[in-house]
């Protein structure tokens, strides 16, 4: 089998369309993973024992089951229960919640690392609990977490081909589409690998930059 540059040029626009969806899903999924992860971490610190238990159970449950199963559940089972999600929405929710269970551990560790004296100073300054989180704890806890969070976002990016299983037309399913209709897999699949690699290669130095930028002081 010979490598056919002409065919590559022909399918490239479609692949790039797919890549756009892949990146969009990663971006939205990352935002959800960060927000929900923070939410899980905060709920797990609640004074209400029932809330911590239920959150702990939900987090363990999501983390303990395969992402693919969760995606199927969101896209094919929820409509039977009356909740119809578009493929991309279901994909973003699945990715975001799944990775939120990991980012919540990052948030938890970062919050626990904030010295007790900071909570006490905030109380001595008479800040409310909300003001303490918003102005004292999170602004110093989050920057050191950014590299670890970004690592999960890169991992999420590499798992986006799973979304093709719920009919999201991302990079992988575009590639499979053109491959199937042309009976040629070499170029589409190679280009998928190359595109993923390109993005990862950009992400790695960006990660290092983040690590250096947010390395904890002292």
């Amino acid at each position, binding site marked *: 089998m010979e490598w056919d540059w002409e065919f590559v040029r022909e399918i490239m626009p479609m692949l790039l369309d797919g890549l756009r969806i892949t990146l969009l899903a990663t971006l939205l999924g990352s935002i959800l993973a960060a927000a929900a992860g923070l939410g899980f971490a905060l709920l797990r610190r609640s004074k209400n024992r029932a809330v911590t238990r239920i959150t702990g159970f939900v987090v363990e449950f999501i983390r303990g089951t395969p992402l693919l199963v969760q995606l199927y559940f969101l896209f094919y089972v929820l409509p039977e229960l009356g909740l119809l999600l578009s493929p991309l929405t279901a994909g973003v929710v699945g990715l975001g919640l799944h990775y939120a269970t990991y980012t919540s551990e990052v948030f938890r560790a970062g919050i626990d690392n904030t*010295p007790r*004296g*900071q909570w*006490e*100073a905030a*109380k*001595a*300054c*008479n*800040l*409310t*609990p909300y*003001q303490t989180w918003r*102005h*004292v704890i999170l*602004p*110093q806890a989050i*920057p050191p977490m950014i590299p670890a969070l970004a690592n999960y976002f890169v991992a999420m990016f590499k798992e986006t081909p799973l979304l093709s299983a719920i009919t999201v037309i991302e990079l992988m399913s575009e590639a499979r589409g053109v491959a199937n209709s042309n009976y040629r897999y070499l170029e589409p699949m190679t280009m998928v690998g190359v595109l993923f690699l390109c993005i990862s290669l950009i992400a790695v130095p960006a990660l290092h930059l983040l690590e250096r930028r947010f390395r904890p*002081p*002292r």
Partner: protein
Amino acid sequence: MTDTIIDIDRVTKRYGSHTVLQDLCFSVRPGEKLALIGPSGSGKTTILRTLMTLETIESGTIRIDGEPLFQMERNGSLVPADEAHLHRMRTKIGMVFQLFNLFPHKCVLDNVTLAPMLTKGVRKADAERRAMELLDLVGLADKARAMPAQLSGGQKQRVAIARALALQPRIMLFDEVTSALDPELVEEVLSVMRMLGSTTDMTMLLVTHEMSFAHDFADRVLFFDRGRIVEEGPPDVLFTNPTHERTQAFLKKIIAAGQRI
């Protein structure tokens, strides 16, 4: 009634089975400067932390301005205080910590303006003007834009004092504010304290191992041992003529360690 600002009545505090404060009683007059001294582990920090509501107590009553700190009145009976009550009580009290506890992600000026803006709704410009006055008072006006990590320990502690003053508390608690400092930086903090002591009518409670400073600064000295007050009196009496043998032993040890009293 109005001549006690703090009234501590039979307060007991335990950590597990370890009793740290035992039936502690004392009261403080408005404007009084009080020094709390005593051996390590005698409960001096604990009583300050309790007044700041950083700790709770097992029994007894603490009153600030006649009002219970950890209880509030509801339908004629006392019930445990809720967050709103504690919040209101905390407006009367400020604290300076041994390890400064500045907010490391905020510059000096923002450290001082944060709480007045958030808790009292002071406008930014007003908060900053007031903060600059306070920084000037502690000799750090030129460091307003510095980050805490760029300051020496003595400078950090002076910022922490300015931060506490910014909320204009009537009671200030100082917990060994110089003991984490290099010896050559102690004096710059003590001189700020001295100036506050002589120019304000704030009530000040000071835990310290600096006996000569306690001597000069305080109107009254409380000697703590094992969660109780063993002896109290004006510094001239307590330091030169202690009656209790544990006080004598403690002061003897301090002098043997090379401190002047």
